[in-house]
């Protein structure tokens, strides 16, 4: 079922459903992700939590919540305030500004293909075990929406529309934070990007330029780019390993990343590998948004690496700053990386508010 059909379905259901709270017998309309064929054939399918199956009504509710300011303490911000579709659902600012004008501490991660982060965890530092868990945090984070869940739930409960939408999605007009997180997670799982130039190249629909082909070889060449050990390869359309690495940014850590979550010093300075899809839209780069351009990123891996105790063994020639790509190699690598961007994703009407 497509999202549009799902929305029509929910309207019908809302119009016809009784307002009872009998969740035990209610079943919303099952929905399926619109998975690109190459994803389906090359990697394992997403794991949808058994306690939060995708439904047309749940996805529609999740989208409504994602774009609604009602979750923030002063009704000024929504999830979409820091996860802009034009930015592949990330923020063009290094740090997002919360409702009180406070700056966050990390760059907003883009949101796509998260359904394939099958075992989690989520966030730059792995602090959320599941997508549902991830959604709990921003609502109460004082640097973000600065709300309390009781206030947010009360606002939803007292609204004119949400009780009906929750009833349609979950069979009960009674709203709670778990249902909110489940609904938004359902919507986020539908955010699928799989129509880049490189995807079309793999499908035989388009050719790469010579520069892009050279760049791909640099990407896959262990003696030059060797990007594939963390960011995958053409057989894996995610372009991330969803694992945690110290990629040689700093000698000392002002942000311990995964280490602050696990308490294990071996994890200090490790952050989750971001996907290389949609780099055209996700600047600035790195967990703290320190690099404004892709050129800066490539320069970092080429000659800017810094040693620290937990730095990844996969990084080469750290004492020399990196492998030292030539300007031509850098340009080719950049051309390839940009071929992984999917403009149709950032303009897809399915993901826009109704």
């Amino acid at each position, binding site marked *: 079922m497509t999202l549009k059909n799902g929305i029509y379905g929910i309207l019908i259901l809302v119009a016809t459903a009784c307002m009872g709270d009998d969740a035990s017998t209610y079943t919303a309309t099952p929905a399926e992700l619109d998975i690109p064929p190459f994803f389906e054939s090359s990697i394992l399918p997403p794991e949808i939590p058994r306690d939060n199956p995708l439904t047309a009504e749940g996805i529609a509710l999740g989208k409504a919540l994602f774009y609604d300011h009602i979750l923030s303490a002063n009704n000024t911000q929504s999830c979409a305030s820091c996860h802009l579709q034009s930015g592949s659902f990330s923020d063009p600012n290094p740090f997002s500004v919360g409702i009180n004008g406070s700056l966050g501490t990390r760059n907003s991660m883009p949101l796509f293909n998260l359904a394939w982060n*099958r075992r989690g965890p989520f966030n730059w530092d792995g602090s959320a075990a599941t997508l549902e868990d991830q959604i709990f945090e921003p609502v109460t984070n004082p640097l973000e929406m600065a709300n309390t869940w009781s206030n947010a739930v009360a606002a939803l409960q007292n609204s004119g529309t949400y009780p009906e939408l929750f009833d349609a999605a979950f069979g009960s007009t009674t709203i709670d934070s778990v249902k909110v997180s489940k609904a938004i997670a359902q919507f986020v799982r539908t955010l699928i990007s799989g129509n880049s130039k490189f995807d079309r190249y793999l499908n035989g629909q388009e050719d790469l330029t010579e520069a892009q082909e050279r760049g791909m070889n640099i990407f896959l060449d262990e003696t030059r780019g060797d990007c*594939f050990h963390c960011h995958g390869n053409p057989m894996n359309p995610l372009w991330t390993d969803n694992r945690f690495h110290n990629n040689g940014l700093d000698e000392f850590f002002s942000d311990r990343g995964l280490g602050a979550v696990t308490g294990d010093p071996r994890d200090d300075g490790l952050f989750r590998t971001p996907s290389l899809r949609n780099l055209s839209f996700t600047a600035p780069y790195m967990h703290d948004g320190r690099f404004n351009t892709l050129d800066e990123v490539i320069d970092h891996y080429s000659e800017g690496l810094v*040693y620290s105790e937990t730095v990844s063994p996969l990084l080469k020639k750290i004492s020399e700053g990196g492998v030292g790509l030539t300007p031509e190699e850098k340009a080719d690598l950049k051309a390839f990386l940009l071929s992984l961007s999917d403009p149709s994703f950032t303009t897809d009407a399915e993901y826009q508010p109704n």
Partner: protein
Amino acid sequence: MKLMASKIAASVLVAALIMTSCKDNDDTPLAEVSPSLSFTHNWDGVPVENADYQNTTYVNERGESLTISKLVYLISDIAFTDAQGNSFSAGDYNLVDAREGVNLSFTPDVVIQEGTYNVSFTFGFDDEDNAGDYPDLNTADGGVWIVPMMLGGGYHYMKLEGKYLNTQTIPETEVGFAYHAIRANDNSTNPITLQDTSFTVDLGDVVIEEGTNIEVQMNVAEWFKNPHTWNLYELFSMLMPNFNAQILMSENGADGVFSRGN
């Protein structure tokens, strides 16, 4: 596919054996069992546990100090061969993540009668299996278990990563190593030269009965020892496209890395 064919053949053989065999003069058929394997890791006999990764310093045969941060490897084609030479194998595979403790126990999808069998497996994938497309392996290890086509394609056999202490610099420096075993390849030739560097590990004869678990021990130190004394100063990184390094890894792996525990 070979794997499926082997599985069917094994099932037919088992069925035939079950129908025709009996214990001595007793008509009671031999019990059917599914033996399991478990995987343990040590450095010259000292167990390597999660807490040792990135913490415990080991000294290899050449005297180089190193720490380990990752050990993931693939085994396949676990086979049980009886005295008559009948081999039973489901042709399945298991990807062990030693640090994370993933897949440390594995039960091949094979049912055999109780008895004595020679037990063996393949380290990595042989060429036939390496040509397959496995969505679970495409997804494994964060989706980076695949070997790029420019390096011959297929899948990694092993990723052993860590850091060694370079004592030739002032001050001494820690340098990362990535001992990645794959099929040997030389892409300077056209077409690319490939050599199957998987190898068979023979665990010897095992009495298989109900509940049998076979411990497969990996002595990590052996990867650096026999027959080739590994020189991390020369062979620490960029080993995937190094044809000769892959041959050395394979020969070291086949010589004493694996043994049967219990």
